[in-house]
């Protein structure tokens, strides 16, 4: 039985920052509906990898394909079109501070997709409703809690009709009480069939959500497999070591489900 | 391009003018800085009366355009019976105006120094005046260096206004020369270049000075 082609494919990504090689030849595939969670110690290159996928960071070697069409960063119009298809959620939210929540979601529709204002507004309102923020649409980022900000940023990305969502430690900057609301939104997205690549420390959340877990260290994907396989039965010692450490941290010592 | 014009007419005149300009800039810089240090210090540590005087001085001499101030000294005072030479009016005008701006920088610098410094000095037995002069001012001057240095550079540029009160410095000589030979473009091109050179030299000197007097951990962030 052959699988359909992957939506997103990375091959052999190499990235260095001033002499230090951060990504040492990483390859990745995302098929429709895949939810891949990337875990690993700090400095392993997880975040950089996500930033390479949508070319926010330039890399020295490697190729990226969307629907088997290679993306050339020098071709600006196609790059911009590609970025609309690959939504990104940042650890620091990066909401546009001078715009209300509604305008944050709307601006991409109006200025990038060139949709007429009225239609854009309706779409923006519905995306914000989808993440549960209908009551806060006219608030500025400074007036929103961290969890609300992250949900706005998810709405903003969804408004662009992405095929893939990249989430870079979406809850790492949040107070514990606020993490739940963001997790709920992400779970809904997954249930709706969104293809996702998620970088996180939250091992409990990851294991419940992921179809596949990838363990990265020192710029390479060392091991990948189903949550059960990686978390309970990892092949490499290094993987076991890491999983044990974060399991203690995030689940109070309980074994992940 | 008549080179002899430049060597025989332009160069001597402009050199004369440059000499006068320097004779305006240097004394004004020294007096201005001295007045500024005094006024700035009085604003923070002076007795109520002197504080007020310094405040009003600052408001007036930063509020009035420099040109108006110069005109007051040279054209205005005669009405009250006081006659100043163009040079004197210019130096007095530049010094007092510049001093008001220096005072602001010194005042800001003094305010930024932690209270504890003064208290420690008093505890050691320094009188208030001595403490301010020996301990606080040296620190304040370092902090005020970028601002005061900037003001000195402004002085170099604004010294050209001395021409407006008939003190013939570099700009004055240029104007006379240019209208005499109707070679405005050439003459003012050269004059512009001379001022740019002076300003660039002063800026470079200022940066070197800032580097020399910097004490580790002592800088505060400036844009």
């Amino acid at each position, binding site marked *: 039985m052959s699988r359909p082609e992957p939506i997103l494919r990375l091959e052999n990504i190499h990235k260095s920052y001033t002499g230090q090689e951060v990504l040492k030849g990483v390859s990745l595939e995302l098929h429709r509906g895949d939810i891949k969670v990337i875990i690993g110690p700090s400095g392993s290159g997880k975040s950089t990898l996500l930033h390479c996928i*949508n070319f*926010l960071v330039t890399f020295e070697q490697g190729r990226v394909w969307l629907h088997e069409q290679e993306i050339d960063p020098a071709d*600006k119009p196609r790059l*911009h079109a*590609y*970025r*609309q298809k690959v*939504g990104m959620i*940042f650890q620091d939210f*990066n*909401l*546009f*501070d*001078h715009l209300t929540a509604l305008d944050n979601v709307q*601006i*991409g529709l109006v*200025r*990038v997709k060139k949709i007429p204002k009225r239609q854009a507004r309706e779409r923006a309102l519905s995306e914000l409703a989808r993440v549960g923020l209908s009551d806060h649409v006219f608030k*500025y980022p*400074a*007036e929103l809690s961290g969890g609300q900000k992250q949900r706005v940023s998810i709405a*903003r*990305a969804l408004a*662009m009709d992405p095929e893939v969502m990249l989430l870079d430690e979406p809850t790492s900057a949040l107070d514990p009480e606020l993490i739940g609301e963001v997790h709920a939104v992400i779970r809904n997205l997954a249930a709706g069939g969104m293809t996702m690549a998620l970088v996180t420390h939250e091992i409990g959340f990851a294991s419940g959500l992921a179809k596949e877990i990838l363990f990265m260290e020192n710029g390479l994907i060392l091991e990948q497999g189903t949550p059960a396989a990686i978390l309970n039965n990892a092949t490499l010692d290094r993987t076991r070591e890491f999983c044990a450490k974060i399991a203690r941290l995030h689940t109070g010592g309980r074994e992940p489900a | 391009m008549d080179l002899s014009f430049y060597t025989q007419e332009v160069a001597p005149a402009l050199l004369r003018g440059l000499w006068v300009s320097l004779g305006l800039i240097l004394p004004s810089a020294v007096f201005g800085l001295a007045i500024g240090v005094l006024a700035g210090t009085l604003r923070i540590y002076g007795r109520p009366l002197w504080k007020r005087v310094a405040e009003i001085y600052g*408001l*007036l001499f930063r*509020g*009035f*355009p*420099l*040109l*108006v*101030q110069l*005109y*007051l000294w040279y*054209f*205005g*005072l*005669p*009405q009250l019976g006081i006659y100043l030479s163009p040079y004197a009016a210019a130096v007095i005008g530049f010094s007092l105006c510049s001093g008001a701006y220096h005072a602001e920088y010194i005042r800001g610098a003094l305010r930024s120094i932690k209270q504890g410094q003064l208290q420690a000095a008093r505890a050691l037995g320094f009188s208030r005046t001595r403490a301010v002069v020996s301990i606080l001012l040296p620190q304040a001057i370092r902090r005020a260096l970028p601002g005061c240095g900037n003001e000195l550079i402004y002085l170099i*540029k*604004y*010294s*050209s*206004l001395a*021409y*407006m009160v008939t003190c013939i410095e570099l*700009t004055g000589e*240029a104007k006379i020369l*240019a209208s005499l030979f109707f070679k*405005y*473009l050439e003459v*003012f*091109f050269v*004059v*512009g270049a001379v*001022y*740019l050179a002076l*300003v*660039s030299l002063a800026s470079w000197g200022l940066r070197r000075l800032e580097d020399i007097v910097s004490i580790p951990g002592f800088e505060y962030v400036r844009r």
Partner: protein
Amino acid sequence: MGRGIQSGWEAIAEGLPYILGGIGVTLTVVGGALAMGLALGLFLSVAQVYGRPWLQRVVGVYVWFFRGIPLLVLLFLIYFGILAALEIDLSPFTIAIVVLGLISSAYQSQVLRGAILSVPEGQMKAARAIGMSDARAIAFIILPQALRLALPGWSNEYTVIMKDSAVTYALGVAELMARTNHTASRTYQHFWLYLLVGFIYMLLTWLGTKALHILEERVAISGYTR
């Protein structure tokens, strides 16, 4: 006490309307220069922050030149020198605005550059992530924030240009300073008239600064601090 025909106060009172008429001219010159300085300054600052190295160098030279040359010298150079050589005929009024505008653009470009650089990097990242071109990102995300940050600096620029506008008298622009001179040479009340015009400049400066403060408050985004 002057040697004039009229008594001091009468002379001043008579000349006052003429002098006050200069306020309009002065404000127009200042406003025009500020606007031109902003328009050019925006362009220069964006070029300096986002442009290629050669463009950055060109802007650097421009800024060095217009911040280094004295206002009076530039006025003479352009009005008597360059315009005459090119045989272009523009009024002193226009030249005053242009020269003040050019100098202001050099200063404003640096303020704006600082403001642009202090907008967090994440804003640009997020704009790119939703597919905005750099041009759109700069226009709709970076500059609106940078301009708000630069607003306090505009107060300072306004006061400087207000005082510098007096120098344009040297070209014969009929603004406050020129009119005061004219009245003084007629009435011999130099001291009192210059004192008066000094206070008028102070008042205009104070009013303008107040107006800019109100503008700052109007465009402030609640809770937005950097």
